[in-house]
């Protein structure tokens, strides 16, 4: 990690906000609005909710800035607020039905790769931007929520395994296990769109997966 002894540039911005300079907070908003909105959208799956959550998260962070400890990164602190606000929003919406991202999902789907067809080189180029975005949205929306949020924080937003675990209140092994399954499930589902186009003699495995296809157990 670069500059363990050099303060993160956010620290100076936070200090300025604490000193009453609200324009420094605008800088933090501009820097992280995209990430916060994305996380909120991935959790709530609803655009209006995600907008409200983004506003609530930035307001809450602003009001609680005094409580922010300089020993954690402002970004991860903000992400934690955004995740909590998103979950609260979900619970409000689905009254009566508890929404949980901390219970493990009993699924074997994707933990054993079945589609072993290779992908086309740069497969995303076979689709226009709108089509590709639709494929990516549809695919990730199909993941169990607890897998989706781990993948988003870890692989899209770049949090470390430890930061992801802390943000979600999960153990490190739980994050690791969900991340692997999330990645494999996404890979499996994207394969439908990105596989090299060939005749019908595809390498497509039956339900039993490993063992029947030359893969060693």
């Amino acid at each position, binding site marked *: 990690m670069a500059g363990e002894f050099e303060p993160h540039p956010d620290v100076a911005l936070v200090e300025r906000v604490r000193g009453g300079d609200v324009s420094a907070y605008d800088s933090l908003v501009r820097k992280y609005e995209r990430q916060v909105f994305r996380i909120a959208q991935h959790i709530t799956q609803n655009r209006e909710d995600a907008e409200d959550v*983004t506003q609530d998260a930035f307001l809450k962070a602003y009001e609680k800035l005094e409580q922010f400890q300089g020993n954690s990164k402002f970004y991860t602190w903000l992400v934690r607020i955004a995740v909590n606000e998103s979950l609260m929003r979900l619970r409000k919406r689905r009254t009566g039905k508890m929404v949980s991202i901390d219970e493990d999902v009993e699924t074997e789907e994707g933990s054993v790769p079945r589609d072993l067809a290779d992908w086309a080189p740069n497969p995303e180029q076979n689709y226009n931007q709108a089509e590709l975005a639709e494929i990516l949205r549809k695919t990730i929306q199909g993941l169990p929520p607890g897998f989706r949020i781990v993948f988003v924080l870890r692989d899209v937003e770049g949090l470390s395994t430890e930061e992801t675990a802390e943000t979600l209140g999960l153990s490190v092994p739980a994050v690791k296990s969900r991340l692997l399954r999330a990645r494999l499930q996404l890979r499996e589902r994207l394969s439908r769109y990105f596989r090299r186009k060939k005749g019908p003699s595809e390498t497509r495995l039956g339900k039993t997966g490993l063992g029947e296809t030359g893969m060693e157990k």
Partner: protein
Amino acid sequence: MTCTEFLALLDDLIDGTVSPELRTELQAHLGRCGHCEVIYNTTRKTIEIYRSHEIYDLPAGLRERLHSAIMARCKKCS
């Protein structure tokens, strides 16, 4: 190394958190197992695609909305 053992370490290989010795073993498995090579490459590609494509556009006007909301709460700004 079997495919099951390889898959158990797939994330560590992708994230670069394996020891050099283990990396060599994993690479050796990749060299002789076409299936695992496909899984490794396509999983990395999956991550890369999600990382490099914005799938949710930021709503127009959100920044202004955030700015006004914050200004409204700012006690020292009036």
